[in-house]
């Protein structure tokens, strides 16, 4: 098993229990009384409508989740698609939404706790708030220490809850009376059918759990299959449970009398018979069992929400939307304790300030989540429309684009049925999140969304306002510091040529140079011994890197230097490129050969999966005045073009483009070349169209130039160079230095875009 597979240990049942366990606490145990009081018996329809809205969104979450099984869930998808400004809204919204939801669950816990034990009123806190604060503190403490529920406990709790509820529904069915349901004052819809949607707005908090499955998607086994089943399945199951149980409760207790604090305990007391045969006090025991169930359910909801919020903080910290300080791991408990404490503080605050208004807590949680859902649907559409080749979900929503549009419209539509206070509160959060982005995050984050890339790549086709708008909100963080050009220097003779190339590129793109000296130590010598001999090594390495720094200075670009000691050769170059987040690697031809036989097996995989652009120089000295770029199109020749442009703009070389055409096709060749040169900002280049054998022609024409830049025509050029099986004999025998360029395939680009460094 690969390490990645080892890290995945949540099966379908576990994933479902996360979803059901989080959702069921609120819908059944806390809300029926409050909601029925507001809408009357039609509140059952409110629950079903809520379930349908949740289902549409669940489809979208499933698609996004299978495309990007990453920690962070909704925030992550939105940040990737719509960019960091919307990412900030989503992250803050998700985070605050979870804090509100947790406060709501805690109040629910407090309500049932107050049934069991008499709690005093302290200062401005009523007994329920006190119970809720206690619960909140305990849940935060448990997560802080990371005391783990044994693997099965969560599953056991959920199954216990389901059986308690099943028993309850059977008892309820037996004492169900349609007259009780419909006969109370005002019939089925005492407040009119117009009360249904406001009712949905109130109870929607009961459906917030399913998205939590997506926040732990990376831990799911077989996420392509299990994620959609768990998300869609858990929404379907809880919707059915809600519909049945709420109907039943209202058929047992007339809605005006249904308890607003502990409805299930009250209904159970009535639904269960006083005695079964000789056993008396059955109803009391049943009510007690229901109360325990309610405590478990609300506790597991709150617990899951606190954990999920830490995931969102982590994902935000990774993108530098919030400080990574928040995500430090506790040295002893291995928990993200700061994140948990901050979220815990918010929960306590919300309980203390808003604890008397459970409806406000419930709706605030819903509004914030709904905003996130709406953005998520928009993000899904962006991914599809931008046609990001790397976006390849295992599960796709049916009826695209109707489903995501419907999801966004329904989500925002439901917000309209909230009360002014929740809408104002949430609008405040959105404004605060945008302000946060511009004040704090914008110059820190370097992640650009697919949307703005899409807009910028079509700058000419789209109206100026759109492009300007995209620029106005674009991140100015590390991304604008430009790319990192990593140079793997190994040989004093080639050092200067490589740095010249890297310096020109860095200067042109406004980036920086990272000069690395990778010292390969033979397998026979331990790294320890090598380290002991370091003094000698350090000197030569230092000298080499010092020269590199001096050479880079000529370009006036920032340069960093690093010495890396390793048994591995080319593999280490890849590793270093990944860990240093390099955008381009410049290395010598000789350097590619130090791989030896050691990595033979994985080499193909390695070189087929380039972490970034690669430029390999065959030649030792560069004395640049003119450069030849043979091209036939393709991503790697784009890279060649960029390099040529950089050299033209910084060193002032003359660029010639070469197209080798078949005899008779010269005209179309010239046309192609004209187009290509203009498309690559090389309109002033000298265009040459020749006929004959491609390699021989390049070899012949190349003689006249100081440098030939050859793009890989297909994947795996680098792999063939390393293996020494490159069939470019002519080029290899050319006296002129040759720069081979290879731009990674789509999959690696995906990794760059989506963070899998």
């Amino acid at each position, binding site marked *: 098993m690969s390490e990645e597979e080892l*890290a995945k240990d949540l099966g379908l049942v576990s994933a479902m229990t996360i979803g059901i366990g989080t959702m069921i606490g609120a819908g059944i145990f806390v809300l029926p009384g409050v909601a029925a009081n507001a809408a009357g018996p039609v509140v059952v329809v409110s629950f079903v409508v809520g379930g349908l809205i949740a289902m549409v969104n669940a489809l979208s979450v499933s698609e996004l989740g299978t495309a990007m099984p990453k*920690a962070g869930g909704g925030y992550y998808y939105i940040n990737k698609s719509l960019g960091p400004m919307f990412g900030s809204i989503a992250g803050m919204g998700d985070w605050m939404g979870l804090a509100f939801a947790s406060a709501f669950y805690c109040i629910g816990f407090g309500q049932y706790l107050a049934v069991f034990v008499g709690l005093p009123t302290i200062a401005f806190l009523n007994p329920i708030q006190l119970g809720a604060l206690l619960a909140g503190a305990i849940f935060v403490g448990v997560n802080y220490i*990371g005391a*783990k*529920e044994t*693997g099965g406990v969560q599953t056991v709790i959920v199954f216990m809850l389901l059986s308690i509820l099943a028993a309850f529904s059977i008892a309820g069915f037996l004492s169900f009376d349609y007259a009780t349901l419909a006969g109370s004052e005002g019939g089925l819809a005492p407040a009119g059918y117009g009360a249904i949607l406001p009712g949905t707005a109130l109870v929607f908090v009961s459906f917030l759990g399913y998205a939590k499955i997506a926040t732990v998607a990376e831990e799911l086994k077989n996420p392509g299959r299990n994620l959609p089943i768990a998300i869609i399945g858990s929404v379907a199951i809880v919707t059915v449970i809600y519909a049945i149980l709420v109907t039943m409760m209202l058929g047992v207790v007339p809605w005006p009398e249904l308890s607003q604090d502990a409805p299930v305990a009250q209904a159970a007391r009535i639904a269960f018979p006083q005695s079964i045969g000789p056993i008396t006090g059955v109803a009391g025991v049943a009510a007690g069992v229901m109360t325990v169930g309610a405590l478990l359910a609300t506790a597991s909801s709150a617990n899951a929400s606190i954990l999920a919020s830490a995931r969102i903080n*982590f994902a935000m910290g990774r993108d530098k939307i919030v400080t990574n300080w928040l995500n430090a791991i506790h*040295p002893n408990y291995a928990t993200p304790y700061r994140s948990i404490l901050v979220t815990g503080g918010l929960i306590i605050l919300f309980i203390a300030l808003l604890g008397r208004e459970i409806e406000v807590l419930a709706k605030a949680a819903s509004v914030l989540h709904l905003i996130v859902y709406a953005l998520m649907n928009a993000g899904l559409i962006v991914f599809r429309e931008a046609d990001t080749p790397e976006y390849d979900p295992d599960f796709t929503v049916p009826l695209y684009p109707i489903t995501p549009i419907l999801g966004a419209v329904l989500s925002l539509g439901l917000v309209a049925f909230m009360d002014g206070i929740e809408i104002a509160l949430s609008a405040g959060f959105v404004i605060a999140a945008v302000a946060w982005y511009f004040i704090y995050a914008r110059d820190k984050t370097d992640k650009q969304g697919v949307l703005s890339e899409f807009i910028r790549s079509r700058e000419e086709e789209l109206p100026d306002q759109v492009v300007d708008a995209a620029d106005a909100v674009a991140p100015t963080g590390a991304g604008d510091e430009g790319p990192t050009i990593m140079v793997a220097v190994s040989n004093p003779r080639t050092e200067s040529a490589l740095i010249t190339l890297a310096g020109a590129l860095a200067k042109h793109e406004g980036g920086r140079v990272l000069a690395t000296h990778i010292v390969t130590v033979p397998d026979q010598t331990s790294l320890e011994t090598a380290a002991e001999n370091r003094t000698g090594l350090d000197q030569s390495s230092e000298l080499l890197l010092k020269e590199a720094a001096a050479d880079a200075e000529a370009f006036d670009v920032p340069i960093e230097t690093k010495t890396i000691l390793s048994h591995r050769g080319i593999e280490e170059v890849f590793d270093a490129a990944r860990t240093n987040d390099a955008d381009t690697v410049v290395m010598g031809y000789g350097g590619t050969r130090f791989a030896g036989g050691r990595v033979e097996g994985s080499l193909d995989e390695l070189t087929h999966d380039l972490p970034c652009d690669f430029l390999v120089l065959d030649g030792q000295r560069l004395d640049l005045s003119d450069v030849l770029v043979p091209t036939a199109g393709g991503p790697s020749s784009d890279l060649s073009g960029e390099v040529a442009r950089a050299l033209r703009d910084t060193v002032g070389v003359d660029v010639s483009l070469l197209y080798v055409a078949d005899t008779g096709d010269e005209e179309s060749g010239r046309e192609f070349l004209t187009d290509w040169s203009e498309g690559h900002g090389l309109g002033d280049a000298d265009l040459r169209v020749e006929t004959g054998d491609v390699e021989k022609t390049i070899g012949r024409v190349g003689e006249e130039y100081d440098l030939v830049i050859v793009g890989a025509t297909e994947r795996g050029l680098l792999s063939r160079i390393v293996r020494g099986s490159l069939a470019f004999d002519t080029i290899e025998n050319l006296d002129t230095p040759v720069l081979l360029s290879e731009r990674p395939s789509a999959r690696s680009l995906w990794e760059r875009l989506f963070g899998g460094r």
Partner: protein
Amino acid sequence: MTSTDETDERDLLGHVLLPVAHEDDALATARALEPYDPERVTALHVVEKGGGVPDKTPVEQSEELAAESYAAVRRVFPDADEHTAYSRNVVRAIFDSVDEVDATAIAYQSRGGNRLVQFLSGDLSMKLVTKSHVPVIALPREGSAE
């Protein structure tokens, strides 16, 4: 499982398995082991899995932590190997890793904490010393006078 007494004279420090939790812990543990000059060292980081419930930390973060820990060990033992295990049960994962890398001993440094804390976070020391099938070396804690 290889029994240690089959090979007559196994060098206690022939191949030490060094379980480390995070960067500081790794550095402290490696420094504590350094004076005894082990022949070979494998740094082990156990990613604690939830086993049915979500983990305490995202997998990506856990793996970052592991990489930092290995780097810290290599500051002291540049040649140290690394081994990452994923398990709900940290102690069992350590024992399994002993067999996987064929270690001669486990060296660890107690992370301290009072009894309540140790109890709540799972008293690893106790389980480690009582259930191991290879020698367990408790490394001295820096600044420990007792």
